[in-house]
């Protein structure tokens, strides 16, 4: 016998279920008067620095049908490439930008809309920058453990070409699944859970 490592196991995940909105976006689900405003509803204010963008995201199942009961959270750096987090040690992020947003997909269209800013670049390791990106976390009925992916920007071709995470995708045909095209004032990001167009998901 050897000594115990004295570690605990992580609590196992369970699906968020079809009624995730009750807990995480109660006002969206029709429960008013408990909390004033759904958390993560607003990422920016009048003073937020950087280029305003909208992100229109959908989550599609293996038949191409949009999920109308998914919940999507995003996390991103501010316009200078700093995260609004106590574990950000490189500087102080823009106090007028939360960096974190949360939306339920629309119960009719399956779309969710984030009003945000274009993130700056952040380091992969010293001397190596990643391309601007937004981290996504997706939960829903039928998803047993939240799925992690990233959205990159189609108009950042040069940065995307040298991004060390995108570079690790062996099957180059799958790289475009992480790149959002600009349509009008919005970046459009379709997340395919399964099938030929399956989005690259990460074990982070």
């Amino acid at each position, binding site marked *: 016998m050897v000594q115990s490592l004295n570690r605990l196991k992580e609590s196992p995940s369970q699906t968020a279920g079809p009624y995730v909105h009750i*807990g995480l976006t109660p006002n969206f689900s029709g429960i008013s008067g*408990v909390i004033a405003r759904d958390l993560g509803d607003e990422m920016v204010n009048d003073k937020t620095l950087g280029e305003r963008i909208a992100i229109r995201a959908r989550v599609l199942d293996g038949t191409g049908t949009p999920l109308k009961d998914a919940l999507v959270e995003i996390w991103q750096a501010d316009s200078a490439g700093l995260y609004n987090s106590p574990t950000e040690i490189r500087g102080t992020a823009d106090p007028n930008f939360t960096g974190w947003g949360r939306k339920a997909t629309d119960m009719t269209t399956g779309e969710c809309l984030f009003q945000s800013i274009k993130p700056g670049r952040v380091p992969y390791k010293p001397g190596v920058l990643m391309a601007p990106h937004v981290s996504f976390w997706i939960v829903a009925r039928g998803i047993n453990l939240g799925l992690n992916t990233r959205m990159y920007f189609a108009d950042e071709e040069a940065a995307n070409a040298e991004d060390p995470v995108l570079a690790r995708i062996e099957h180059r045909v799958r790289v475009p699944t992480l790149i959002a095209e600009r349509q009008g004032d919005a970046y459009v990001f379709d997340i395919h*859970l399964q099938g030929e167009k399956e989005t690259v998901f990460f074990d982070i």
Partner: protein
Amino acid sequence: MSAETKHPPEIGAFFQRDRSWHPRGLTPDYKTSVLRSPEKALLSLDNTISEITGPVFGHGILGALDNDLIHNFAKPGESAIGERIIVYGRVLDERGNGVPGALLEFWQANAGGRYRHKKEGYIAALDPNFGGCGRTITDEDGAYAFRTIRPGAYPWPNGVNDWRPAHIHFSVFGHGFAQRLITQMYFEGDPMIWQCPIVRTIPDKAAVEMLVAALDMQATIPMDARAYKFDIVLRGRRSSVFENRLEGN
């Protein structure tokens, strides 16, 4: 935004998730998972600063009744119908340290198993004094508590006669986006636990048992509410500050 802590924040990468301990994506007895699970392998990514960081919420976001589901939707002077309980515990990391400043959000059905949600059509009645959502933030030791009523079991369209055990959904934030977790709490002694296709997405019995809250008569308040203890473990993080020298970039 940050919680008050005595030590500078730890900034190491998180321990790799044990994906054989968690449910797999494809668990066909839980039918909805069949078309909602990736078929291709996940791309492993040792944490960058994008995963190590995450939002942290201050106690200032909380309202006075956010952790009291018996009253936070009730009309003045009234309260929700059902078995009054306290759910308490700690949020820990895999190294056994308490996680302070962790935001917990929870949601559940009422005592009859009915959710307050427009897509829910179960014949059991709504309780006019019960909304079913709440939230709290852990203290400096990682401890939390809230009051609620014990939810009922309810049927769902999976098999023709599948019923969920009584459960409370939990959403947990640690300090990094990679710690994000949603899970469900079950109740000690409920015979429905071991029948449930969603519980059974978890391959290991010991992992299921981590989600079963223990009845705690010592923490019970006589003539008021019984107590259940439910600890939650989030991913631990590597402690070395040397391997993550991101400054200067």
